[in-house]
């Protein structure tokens, strides 16, 4: 394998120096280069480095493991969080009732029973930044981010406040470099997705849960002790038919793509197939459950297939079918290429990815390898052609300046201020990948401010009274020698009346990070 890669590389890199190609790979497969990393990857061999990144289990990551221990969110499983969420919800309801009875709502405001879940959401964002900045398994972090965005779930929607951690940890991360089909099925079964796109509420028309049996606990749950008002509200809230949301986004966003050639009737049939895919109540851990009573047992016809009274297996069969469709391969491959190659990726790399997909039945590693060995990935048009997303910008700046991300929400808030609050995209499309989504005047000014802020903590550049040496050092450490002569001369000019070397460093680093060269990757 390595020999093939080296030959491919030799044939396709007439213009890029080993260092330039290492920097390019670090910009796309990683969150930018740490100081000196372009050189070390070039010495190691860029294709060898790419192979290692494709096999992250053999890359040791001790420092990150130590840092992850600070995140208590990793100690909770979904059932823990579900229990805490249920307690918080009850506490809030109790406070609401008290407030209603006493006419005093100030106590309610001060108590903030849901505060813990807001904090957990913040912790999840910080964890994403720490991992992206520090992990030695950079490609894995990049591809986790890609799939998290492809299968977007909005953390702010109700139960997703507590369902998201397990979605990231158990659904996405273990499968990010596995097979697409497994990832697709896992997201379909994930409580986070079932809640986010409302499938948990999708039931066959005229279906109803079986009557409650026995225990005091169940009687309570099913309303024997309810106030009439509560009972009415509960009955009103009970779902009464199919919900098409998941079915629609499954076809349009997760698999076939908007041009995938399906109809509204197909969406309805798909929704019927997924009726009954739901979530256990919080007191039982909020896990996946297939509710037989809610499943539409009638015949469904979609994409030339017939599904008939086969319970949950209908959905699994459909997902496997979708994962193997050419439209899906093309749609997802094109999106991967937009991420790794260019905003408007050339056909060559997409075709290479689709071919690898077909050959390996959707092995994500093989698809990625096909993209990274395509001539388009290494073409002069691709290099430095993409604008960093806010997340990529902040993390790459942190890496370049050698700043150790701390355990405060500071960096996560910075990413949010630049327009990409993590896990907070309400639309199932996820965040956009192209520069048109991220570049606007207000956002650019915000990036400049962010750059000046990060520059103050810069640890990778020693203060230097010689401004020419300082700027050269910044060029090497932050931009692997790719700083434009224009940028260099503007920074030097700005330094002329700055005598304090520490101030000069902060200004020069800030201009370099906030300037146009560093926005690109």
């Amino acid at each position, binding site marked *: 394998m390595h020999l093939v890669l080296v030959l491919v590389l030799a044939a396709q890199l007439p213009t890029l120096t080993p260092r330039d190609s290492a920097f390019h790979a670090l910009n796309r497969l990683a969150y930018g280069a740490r100081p000196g990393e372009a050189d070390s990857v070039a010495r190691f061999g860029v294709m060898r480095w790419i192979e290692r990144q494709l096999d992250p289990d053999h890359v040791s990551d001790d420092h990150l493991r130590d840092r992850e221990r600070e995140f208590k969110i990793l100690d909770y499983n979904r059932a823990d969080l579900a229990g805490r969420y249920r307690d918080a919800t009850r506490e809030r309801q109790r406070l609401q009732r008290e407030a209603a009875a006493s006419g005093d709502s100030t106590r309610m405001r001060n108590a903030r029973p849901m505060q813990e879940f807001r904090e957990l959401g913040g912790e999840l964002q910080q964890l994403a930044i720490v991992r992206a900045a520090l992990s030695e398994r950079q490609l894995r972090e990049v591809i986790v981010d890609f799939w998290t965005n492809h299968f977007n779930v909005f953390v702010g929607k109700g139960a997703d406040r507590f369902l998201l951690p397990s979605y990231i940890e158990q659904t996405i991360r273990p499968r990010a470099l596995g097979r697409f089909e497994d990832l697709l099925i896992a997201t379909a079964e994930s409580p986070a997705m079932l809640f986010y796109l409302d499938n948990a509420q999708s039931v066959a028309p005229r279906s109803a849960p079986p009557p409650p049996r026995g225990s005091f606990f169940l009687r309570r749950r099913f309303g024997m002790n309810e106030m009439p008002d509560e009972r009415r509200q509960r009955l009103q809230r009970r779902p009464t038919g199919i919900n098409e949301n998941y079915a629609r986004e499954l076809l349009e*966003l997760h698999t076939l793509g908007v041009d995938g050639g399906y109809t509204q009737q197909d969406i309805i049939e798909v929704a019927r197939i997924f009726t009954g895919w739901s979530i256990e109540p919080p007191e039982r851990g909020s896990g996946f459950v297939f509710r037989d009573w809610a499943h539409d047992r009638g015949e469904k016809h979609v994409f030339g297939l017939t599904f008939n009274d086969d319970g949950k297996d209908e959905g699994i069969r459909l997902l496997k079918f979708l994962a193997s469709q050419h439209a899906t391969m093309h749609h997802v491959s094109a999106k991967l290429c937009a991420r790794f190659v260019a905003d408007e990726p050339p056909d060559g790399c997409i075709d290479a990815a689709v071919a690898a997909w077909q050959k390996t039945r959707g092995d994500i590693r093989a698809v990625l390898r096909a993209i990274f060995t395509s001539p388009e990935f290494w073409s002069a048009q691709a290099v430095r052609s993409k604008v960093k997303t806010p997340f990529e910008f902040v993390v790459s700046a942190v890496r370049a300046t050698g700043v150790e991300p701390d355990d405060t929400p500071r960096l996560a808030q910075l990413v949010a201020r630049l327009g990409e609050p993590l896990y907070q995209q309400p*639309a199932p499309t996820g965040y956009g990948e192209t520069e048109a989504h991220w570049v606007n005047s207000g956002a*650019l000014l915000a990036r400049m401010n962010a750059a000046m802020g990060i520059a103050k903590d810069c640890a990778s550049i020693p203060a230097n009274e010689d401004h020419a040496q300082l700027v050269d050092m910044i060029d090497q450490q932050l931009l692997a020698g790719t700083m434009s002569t224009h940028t260099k001369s503007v920074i030097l000019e700005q330094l002329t009346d700055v005598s304090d070397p520490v101030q000069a460093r902060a200004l020069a680093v800030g201009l370099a990070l906030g300037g146009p060269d560093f926005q690109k990757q």
Partner: protein
Amino acid sequence: MTISRRIFVKSGGLALVSLGLDPLFLVRAAFAAGRPAVMPSDRPILVCLFQRGAVDGLNMIVPHGEPAYYQERPRIAVPAADVVDLDGHFGLHPSLGPLKELWDNKSLAAIHAIGSPDGTRSHFDAQDYMESGTPGVKSTGDGWMNRYCQHDREHEDTPFRAVAFGPQLPRILAGSAPSLAIDDLQAFGLRVPQEAARDKLTRAFEELYDGAGTGLLASSSREGFEAVQMLKRADPSQYRPAAGVEYPQGRLGKTLLQIAQLIKADVGLEIAFADCSGWDTHVNQGSSEGQLSARLRELGLALAAFNHDLGERMRNVVVLTMSEFGRTIRENGNSGTDHGHATAMLALGGPVNGGRVLGRWPGLALEQRFEGRDVAVTTDFRDLFGEILARHLGATDLGTVFPGYTPSPAQFVGAIRA
């Protein structure tokens, strides 16, 4: 099939393809050339306030002539004696009293029973639909205000054309047309406390990006620095509202003050957008006094102050309030209301056909309700937004602003004076 075309087709229907042929930066560069330093002060302006959380339209514009209203809300109905009567059937919540003079001079209208054709009672979905302008379709990438800006480019000669007040660009303004998110006018630009140092740093970045050649980075940064310069000339720190005008304390008052300031600075503002939250009154909503009353008081005072501050300038300004849905007709067990369907919106300003409650009132009787519990929607929100875009801002192609739907003049409620 390129990514961009896919996004365009998905988000905007046919006409958006034109943008794919027309690189954004070229379009922007073309508009950036030859901008006048000061914009004419007679262009129409739309200011939108989003009441996030679903305002109770029935307690905002009270149907006090409707016995069912009092039957269903024994604890939270606004007593007829407290309502500021408008037309014998509807009246303002007493906390909106400061707006009565606008009603009397025919520059305030209410639109009742307005909402989405989609029946969702999720804040998240309903807000999303109201901002994307495509109820029922979740995957629309951009917002309707941005799509308006994409297609009516006549005014695209200023970085201040479309401004959202807040830390981030809201969904309604998301998209490929340039728009600004401003959290605080005085803090817009580079954050350096000392003015001389700030100017110097601004020039340095400006020079850096001047060398960035063409492309979106270059054109957007130019727009940004232009906006900074225009604001510097307008000098927001020196702004004083018109004599005797006092905006209420709080975020809403501050935001409306800044919008008034931008309008008076003649920087070319066409669309301003801001959020105002706190309307999700499930518990202890109150009636003439209480929780909702306090929010409405702030809203009423802020709108009245804005109106007085702008004075004669209101002749070409329309302020529109919107909210994702209304609330249940019947009060709940916690002296509040739950998520409902239709709500009410307010439109005020010189061009508004004021002094009336617009839209067909469906009534509150059981059989007149949506799903037996909520006010039915008789006006699709796209018809009101479309009317304002067409008759106030002069939009020519509503089909591209609201893909899959063409608001028709026959459906317009008549919010804008002919």
